[in-house]
């Protein structure tokens, strides 16, 4: 264990630092696809899509999962910084509430489709994407 190549991970939201740990691997939901961060990762700056951040404290252990609604991530050889718009541990997601949120977002999107307001439509579509991803993360 002593020589395990660790990375310094920080998961931060505007309200608080949610997690500061040194796992062996982090899987980040990048906007262009998920990517795993190990030690000596090439420097990367990526936007996030709504999805799950998986924190593998050790390779064999079950990952700790956090749902993020979006944000940005920066990774380098030794560190990984995730600036999430909002983040919650997956275990804390209320499945029923997530279901309801999906239904509400779908209804809002249908309503927005009928109106001419393009921005409202985009917002509704985005809200639906977040709600769906949250539901998917809850499992």
């Amino acid at each position, binding site marked *: 264990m002593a020589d395990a190549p660790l990375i310094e991970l*920080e998961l*931060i*939201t*505007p*309200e*608080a*630092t949610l997690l500061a740990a040194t796992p062996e691997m982090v899987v980040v939901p*990048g*906007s*262009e696809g998920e990517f795993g961060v190990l030690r000596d990762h*090439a*420097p*990367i*700056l*990526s*936007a996030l899509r709504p999805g799950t951040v998986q924190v593998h404290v050790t390779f064999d252990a079950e990952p700790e999962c956090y749902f993020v609604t979006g944000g*940005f991530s*920066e990774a*380098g050889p030794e560190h990984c*910084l995730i*600036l999430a718009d909002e983040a919650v541990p997956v275990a804390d997601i209320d499945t029923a509430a997530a279901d309801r949120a999906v239904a509400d977002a779908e209804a809002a999107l249908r309503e927005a489709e009928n109106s001419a307001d393009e921005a409202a439509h985009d917002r509704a579509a985005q809200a639906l994407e977040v709600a769906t991803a949250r539901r998917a993360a809850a499992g």
Partner: protein
Amino acid sequence: MSSLKELRTRISSVRSTRKITQAMKMVAASKLRRAQERAERARPYAAGMEAMVARLAGTVAPEDAPPLLAGTGRNQACLLLVITADRGLCGAFNSGVVRAARRKMAALAEDSIEAKIFCVGRKGYDLLRRTHGQRIVGHRQLPPGRDLPFAEAETVAAEILGLFADDGFDTCTMHYNRFRSAMSQVVTETQIIPRTAPESDEPAAEPDAGALHEFEPGEDELLADLLPRNLAVQIHGAFLESAAGEQGARMTAMENATRNAGDMIGRLELSYNRQRQAAITKELIEIISGSEAL
């Protein structure tokens, strides 16, 4: 000279005022602690965001930089974002910010730059409305609850960005109270559009970009996402600083008020006792001289 009865009422009224100011001071002190913690918790995010923007900004050629980063190239109108509290009774907290904003507007007027105002917090709006009503393009009250959700800052940022997109202004400065300690708040002016690196930037954000970053998606798209977000983060930071400052200012103001009330009670009691003794002495003299006359 007021009568004994009047003095007694006076004393009891000042006593109850003192009770109120004392209670307000305690409330402010406990709110201050919470506001301070919140401001501290938000700092890592702001710092991380700032580092990312700085890194990205370094890689973009100045001519392709979006207006939020490089400015519009004009300087004809300036938006002042004035952040105050919703409530008074906190010393010079609100008037300090408003005074700074007025000074800024006077300076802008000399350079014939049009000034516009966006007020956050009721007190600043009330103070500026009378003198600069026609310049106010928007105002907003903070939600009454204890915490300032990030969403609130996002709404304000969205409104400002909307104005910016409509060519409503070219530069934007933010005026607010920065929390230094419970005893002192510093009125601060920060330029938020176009972006400026915050002071105390130790090494000028590694210009050689020792670590060449990969960007996902492209730099331009990332920057287009990050800059509005960064604006919201800066505004949120200012909200939190201002909230902590407000409680600090109120605590100090109420402490002074409590002390003044105490002094006043002392003075009133002194004159009350003097008058009471004078009255007793007078009565005694009357009795004695009455019995001597018999």
